[in-house]
């Protein structure tokens, strides 16, 4: 059962409630007796409802709109970075502080063991209850968060540890203090330094890939993305505000922005879409963790077979070739239709 069902999940939640009721009834002798008296076959009812539920699930989740995907990516029951760290990794030793003026709880990271190997893991951290959500600034990193992230990346480089990064943020913080501390400059420095970091980097977009706040820690050798995660140059609400001066038209903007995992893969901007359990990662934390783990494991092996120089050269080519454009100059006319496709 979900704590926070989305609108389009509510029919499923209602069925779930009904099934639960029957299941309860089947365990209570008095209720069972009452049902038999009324000629109701509880087991049959449950079976029928479960069949119906499965059909409903398939129907709903096969037809998610881009806006539904945004909602899924922001789902409050969705696993967050620390959930993955706790399940996929061992011996997590969190490191704190940017060595400049703060420790930003919106980004967590440290050493950990991944399948017996020492790695550095980090990522944006959201939270569920209000107090912790505020503490984590809703996953919006401040300059100190990016500085901490960069510090951990340099540690990973120094000690030749693979870097595994989870991305889940609505955007970078952009308030007065963030501007005063150079949020733009800090992100830019992260982009530059990650592109030449001499250690393998795997990035997993697990929820919201919110523009520069996401990309600031997402320059990797391998970019994985969960099926119902989104990755966008601008929040759909902001896009709608610019296009139509109407934030409520975010669903339309979501469609226009092509911000789903499927699109990111089509554009060649990510390397793999990690499938989620039917109905989304939030319905089966252990299962999605297993999928992420096995994908990480596969890709880490691939990267480990490259020399460091190949790795860094390959990373440069990867990002250097992103983007589409054409050259209308007749002498050199060419259409560049992207990156890795």
């Amino acid at each position, binding site marked *: 059962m979900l704590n926070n069902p989305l609108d389009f999940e509510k029919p499923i939640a209602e069925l779930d409630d009904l099934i639960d009721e029957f299941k309860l009834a089947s365990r209570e002798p008095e209720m069972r007796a009452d049902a038999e008296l009324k000629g109701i076959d509880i087991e049959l009812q449950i079976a029928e409802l479960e069949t119906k539920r499965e059909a409903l699930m398939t129907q709903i989740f096969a037809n998610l709109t881009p806006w539904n995907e945004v909602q899924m990516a922001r789902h409050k029951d969705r696993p967050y970075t620390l959930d993955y760290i706790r399940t996929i990794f061992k011996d997590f030793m969190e490191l704190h502080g940017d060595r400049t003026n703060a420790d930003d709880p919106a980004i967590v990271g440290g050493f950990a063991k991944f399948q017996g190997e020492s790695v550095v893991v980090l990522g944006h951290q959201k939270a569920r209850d209000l107090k912790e959500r505020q503490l984590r600034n809703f996953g919006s990193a401040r300059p100190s968060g990016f500085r901490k992230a960069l510090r951990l990346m340099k540690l990973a480089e120094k000690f030749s540890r693979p870097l595994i990064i989870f991305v889940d943020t609505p955007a970078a913080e*952009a308030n007065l203090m963030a501007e005063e501390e150079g949020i733009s400059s800090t992100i830019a420095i992260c982009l530059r330094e990650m592109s030449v970091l001499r250690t393998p980097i795997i990035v997993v977009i697990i929820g919201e890939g919110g523009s*520069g706040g996401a990309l600031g820690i997402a320059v990797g050798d391998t970019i994985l993305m969960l099926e119902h995660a989104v990755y966008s140059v601008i929040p759909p609400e902001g896009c709608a505000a610019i296009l139509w001066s109407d934030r409520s038209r975010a669903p339309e903007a979501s469609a226009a*922005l092509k911000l789903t995992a499927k699109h990111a893969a089509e554009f060649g901007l990510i390397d793999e879409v990690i499938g989620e359990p039917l109905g989304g990662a939030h319905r089966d934390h252990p299962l999605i963790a297993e999928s992420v783990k096995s994908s990480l494991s596969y890709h880490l092996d691939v990267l480990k077979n490259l020399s460091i120089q190949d790795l860094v050269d390959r990373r440069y080519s990867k990002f250097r070739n992103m983007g589409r454009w054409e050259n209308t100059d007749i002498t050199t006319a060419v259409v560049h239709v992207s990156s890795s496709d």
Partner: protein
Amino acid sequence: MARGGWFRKQSRNGAAEATVPDGLWSKCPRCGVISFARDVERNLNVCPKCEYHHLITVEQRLTLTVDENSFVEMDAGITSLNPLAFPDYDDKLNSDRAKTGRKEAIVTGRAKIDGQTLLIGIAEFGFRAGSMGGAVGEKIVRLLELAEQENLPVILFTASGGARMQEGLLSLMQMAKTSAALARLDQARIPYIVVITHPTTGGVYASYAALGDVIIAEPGATVGLAGRRVGNQDMGAKLPEDFQTTEFQYRCGMVDQIVHRRDVRGTLGKLLMFLTEARTYVK
């Protein structure tokens, strides 16, 4: 007294305004003073009253900045596609192509300042508010790669609303693409100077505009990540008068010098001299 031509259309984000009025008179968007358009032009398109630096075209910028007839454009044919089939984007591109006579929101090429050869890129704010899509990213990276090959210093004049929304995630990635090329330039120890002009925001400020070895900025320019409006909404806190301007960024340590338009050329000439001089003492 004729007053034709100074009622200018304000663009949606309040940042852009026509730079040179059609008529005889020009009203300053900051101080509101009405001046002879010719006087403003003669003053390098800086308001004679309040020193407001009007937006200028790439041609005007080149005239102010590089040695006469030294500029040779590169990659002028590179232009945007509409990979997302984003509504109205094709029309907007075509209209901006017609309006500016440019294929994209940046002009790049080779030029000289005080006789010193360099590679230069100048944002065309009139083209999609200077925003960075695939074509802008490609043109910048080609410039940077050429700089590395030929060991030439690079100067970028920035003016941009940020990453170009209509190209979605592909445009966001231009931040990583340009920054990666700058990482290589950095490792090759090639000078990279940024001149921030009004306005420089969003993904452009959070990538190549913030990565100069030296960063200078024209006074009064809007410079920040998210734009003043966003900041206001998010915080409710009282913002300083000069929030997200050149002066604010200078105070916060992000800008080396605030340079009046009339001094930009001289400053760049001096910087090039310092940065490109032969390294005589290294054994």
